[in-house]
């Protein structure tokens, strides 16, 4: 009689808590007011990587709450209206969760297209909310320079999905 395979349990600490803390720490580091070779460091919205990757790894109750907390941190750290980035991050999470069955198992190009769509959705929500609140539309050029570094973080999202997807035998 064959022995049952050991169950590898990947707890929320591994795929939710630590990635959240790392994302926030990198955000703080990139918020340092310095210029390297006369250029400011980029300012991507790193928690968007988590908002895209988490629902593809596994639906979770903790993930929306962690995204809410991360978004609130971004609002307070950057000095924007509170509730803005939580809403944007949760919208991306909700979209990806809703389309999970279409995305899971697809090749990397499809994943990238969905990731870009999620990033654009998040920035669109924030753009509209800020334009309404400030009664002044932000510059589209500045918007593009914010979107690009975030899109370039797709390999991190892909790595998270490949690392943690089905890592826990119970969800196979």
């Amino acid at each position, binding site marked *: 009689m064959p022995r049952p395979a050991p169950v590898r349990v990947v707890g929320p600490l591994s795929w939710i808590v630590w990635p959240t803390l790392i994302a926030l720490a990198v955000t703080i580091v990139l918020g*340092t*007011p310095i210029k390297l070779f006369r250029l400011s460091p980029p300012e991507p919205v790193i928690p968007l990587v988590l908002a895209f990757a988490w629902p593809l790894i596994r639906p979770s109750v903790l993930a929306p709450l962690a995204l809410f907390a991360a978004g609130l941190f971004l609002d307070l*750290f950057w000095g924007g209206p*509170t509730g803005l980035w939580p809403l944007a991050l949760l919208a991306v999470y909700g979209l990806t969760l809703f389309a999970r069955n279409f995305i899971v198992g697809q090749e990397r190009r499809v994943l990238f297209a969905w990731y870009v769509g999620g990033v654009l959705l998040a920035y669109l929500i924030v753009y509209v909310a800020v334009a309404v609140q*400030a009664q002044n539309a932000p510059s589209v050029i500045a918007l593009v320079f914010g979107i690009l570094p975030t899109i370039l973080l797709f390999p991190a999202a892909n790595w998270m999905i490949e690392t943690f997807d089905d890592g826990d035998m*119970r*969800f*196979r």
Partner: protein
Amino acid sequence: MAFRDGPFEKLRVPLTWAAALALIVAIVGAIVLLIADRRAGEDGDGYGAVRESFDRVAAPVGGVFAAPVRWIGQGADFVDDYFFAVSENRRLKARLAELEATRDANIALLNVNRRYQAMLGIRVEPPVPAVHARSVSESRGAFVNARLIDVGSRRGVKIGNPVINEHGLVGRVVGTTPSVSRVLLLTDVASRTPVLVDRTDARAILTGDGSGNPRLEFIRGQDAVRVGDRILSSGDGGSFPRGLPIGVAARGIDGTWRVKLFSDRGAMDFVRVLLFEDFSQLVDRRALDAAPLAGADTAPPPNAPAAPTQPAPQTAARPEASPAQPASPQPPPQPQEGAG
């Protein structure tokens, strides 16, 4: 029995529903926060206890995280200085020659200006005290352009205080804690600054939009701006002293007038907060509250009987109409390091 056939197989549906429920609750919470923040902004000018507490903690934590980045930045500056030392030296020599001529003209004009002020009894603006600060963190995106600086209400910083660096105006304080303040930069989408065009004295509003070069809007007069015109703070509204250098006018790629900021010429590591509130600190408040031209009477009609002469009531405004007192000549507002 395979594991996928076990009792955990049924976990997927309830977990998805539970995640969706948590998502909806979190989204509702975010919307409530957003609405509450908007109402708080409309109702009061308070900074908010949550933001205040966060900033107080974020400054030292950010300082620890940022330390390695600062070391890297210093290394990059060293390399940068090494490779660009020759061109920088040439540029500085040319600049020095240009400024020496400007300095001589400035001394002559200052001398004439002081004599005019003394003759006319002009009340000049007093020097504005200032405190130095170090920038702790910044946000540079399209939506928020702000900085945390390491001085707060303990050093006399208040909401609304202008912030400058060695090149020009940077922004204004929008939130304070005892030890940390948040500065809204001129480039922020919520920033509006009354400015003037130095050459024509035309007024305009400098409106940030998240890009590096804020827009000039509501420009008064026709052909009031040309490319290269210096833009200064106008002091209208009393939020900024008049004459703080801001930048030069330029045409944007969208055809609008924009301003290339002087403050972008170098890093904004260190800034100065001008402890300037509004014009009420520059004049006697009782004089401001007095009725305009109190005591001044209209001339009687030519055929009216002569009224007995009454002494004009003494009001706080009268000294303005009294013979000019020689004012002590003072230069335009110069930031002074305050005793914080």
